[in-house]
Structure formats: C-alpha cells, structure tokens
C-alpha cells in the first residue's frame, strides 16, 4: 500500500481540507470575524506539510526527516508571509497568479472579457502565528498512518 497517499486520507487531513474549503467559500462570508479568520490558517497549516510530502513523491523518502522538512518549510513560509510585508505582497501576487487560470476559465464560460491576474487578499498580521502549532498535526498523521513506522509488526 502506498503510505504516502494514506496521509491525505487520514481523518485529520480530510477534516482540514473540508474546513479549508467550507471556511474560505462560505463561513468567512457568512460569519466574518476572528474565528473564521484563523480557521483557514489552522486548517492550511495542518494540511500543507502533508500535501508537500505527497506532491514531492519519491523526492521525499519515507522518514521523519521528510515530515520535519515539510513542516519546517510550511512554518517558515507562513511566518514570513505573516510578519514581513514584502513576503505578504509576494504571496498575494503569487497566489493570484496561481488562481488566474481558474478566473480566466470562469470569465470565458461567462462570456466576459478576460481579466489579468488579481492579487489575493492577505495582510501582514503576526497574531495569525497563533495557528502555527497546527503544523504539528502532520507528524501525528504521519505516525498514525504508519508513514514513518510499520503500521503492523511483521509476523
């Protein structure tokens, strides 16, 4: 069984994905406030290290080191975006560029004029670093799914 793929099928990962989608597309609009502002950060921080390991494929050997590196990259990137205005600006433009093909497809389907990339909404806000501990869930998921140890002792 491919243990790497199992990472994203763990309930913690599935809940993080569902929370991220529901919060970004419904809850933030329906209940704007502190909680919904932090929920996507928490869900994204729990999910992103696992996604990095899965996307890295064979580049990431099945070890604690892979999980640690993915967690570190996630935490470092998030800290930079939330504390350094230049990193925030880069994130806004970069993510806007990644979203652009989907915006363009939507424009094309609606028959409206093609727009250029639009920078996403993000602010430099160190208080969002409160969500950083959620990166630790990646290690819990890796352990629970047997990604970093045999799930069952050999007979």
């Amino acid at each position, binding site marked *: *069984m*491919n243990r790497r*793929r*199992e990472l*994203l*099928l763990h309930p913690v*990962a*599935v809940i993080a*994905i569902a929370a*991220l*989608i529901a919060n*970004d*597309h419904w809850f*933030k*609009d*329906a209940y*704007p406030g502190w909680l919904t*502002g932090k929920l*996507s950060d928490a869900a*994204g921080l729990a*999910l*992103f290290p*696992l*996604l990095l390991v*899965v*996307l890295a494929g064979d580049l990431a050997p099945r070890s604690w080191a892979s999980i640690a590196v993915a967690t570190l990259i996630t935490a470092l990137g998030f800290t930079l975006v939330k504390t350094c205005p230049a990193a925030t600006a880069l994130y*806004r433009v970069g*993510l*806007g560029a*990644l*979203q652009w093909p*989907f915006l363009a497809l939507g424009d094309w389907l609606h028959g409206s*004029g093609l*727009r*250029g990339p*639009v*920078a*996403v*909404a*993000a*602010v430099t806000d160190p208080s969002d670093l409160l969500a950083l501990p959620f990166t630790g869930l990646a290690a819990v998921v890796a352990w629970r799914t047997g990604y970093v140890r045999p799930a069952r002792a050999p007979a």
Partner: protein
Amino acid sequence: MREVSRARAWAGRGVALIAALACIATSKPRWHIEAAFPRQAPTVTPAGGRLGLAVTVEASRLPEVRCSTPDHRFQVLRPLAPATTTAPSAVRARYLCAPGWQLESVRIDEGSGEPRSSTPPPGEFVRITRLEAVETWTVSAETSAPIRPWDRSPEYGIATVVATSPLQPYFQASVEPGPAAAMFGVPSLMGPSTDGAHYEFLVPVTAPGGPYRGTIRVRATIYGACEASCNPPGPDALTLAPADDAG
C-alpha cells in the same frame, strides 16, 4: 482486497488533487470600490411626490446600486434598461430610486463579507456620471395569497406571489387577520426567472402562538422615469398572482 487497495489509491489521488485546489483557492480576492456622490446633487426626493432620483453609472462591471425606502428597507436596484457597453471593459446603466427613497451606495466588488480588503485590480472603476431628480410614473397591483405551513413547523408560514413585469416591482405586504396574530417578514425576492419577467417573492410569517391560517395581502408597484413625455404603461405592465395560480 486488490479492489479495495485500488479504490484507496484513487481516493488518495482525488484527495491530493482536492487538497491542492483548496490551497490554491484560499484567500480569494476581496475588494470593493464605492462611487463618490456628485457634490450638491440630491440623494433623496420627497416621499409621496412624483420626483424620483435617476442615477446614471459608468463602471468596469455592473454595479450594485442600493436605495433605502421610507420604511427603512434596502432595495438593490436593477437597471431601468439593459446596460450598454461603452468600452471593451466598461458599462453604462441607469437606475431609479423611487419617490421618497434615499440613494445609499453605488459600488462594485469582488468577494464579500470579510473586513480585510485587498487593493482593487487595475482597470476597475465605478463613477456616477449623472444624478438628478426626474418625474416618475407608477403602476400598482394588489393580490392576496393564502399562508401555507413552511419548513415542517406550524409556527412558520409562507406565501408566494409571482409578479410579471418588465421592471423590478417594489413589494409591500400585510397579514390578515392583523399583526396581533402573526408577524410577517420582509418580502424577499427569489427571482427573477431566466426570462427576466417573473419575480417570485416569499413572505415569511411567524405565528408564535402556533399554527396560523391567514392571508397575505401584497401590493406591488413598479416605477419608471418619464422621458420626453410621461405616459405610464397600462395595467398589463404589472400583473400579480399567487404562485399556485401563476401557471
């Protein structure tokens, strides 16, 4: 066993794709631009008179124009006529705040509901090019509809009325027997339908005392701006029917 393993492998790929898309779709662009009102232009006209407020707007996308009514309800206006394209990425549209209504805002936006707003992208704009008091005509119609139980709860009722009109009607409602027996909410627009001519309004009714049987009486009014001359359309311009009779 192999089937289960294959299914989990596909589920894993699917979830990875969804997770990647969820990460890309986060932090959607959220911005808005509100048009400034021209200095010394009127933003309200006297209630009960014939003067309304015509608002001509140019924007990079169809704006949201809001007026408040004398009974403190907000109306999101629809253009008096289909918006015209004035440039590859600009539209012009004309709206009418009915007599007594106050112009509240003219804005364009993307995303909503979040206090954090990002900078609007280049090329997005909205401006009021003309704001003036104009003579108006009105056409009204009345109908009544029975209140039906709603949402499997006897305390809630609903009446649905369909309006057929080329213009967006303004609805007022009253409940019979009177408000001592039931409270009724603001009629809410559920349409228009795809042909743009049918507007379906839901009127929620709350009867704290239990099942409520009554009638909702609805009065709808359409307004228009007098152009060269003031010839209001005939009564056929607005017809109302309870939803069950609308066919």
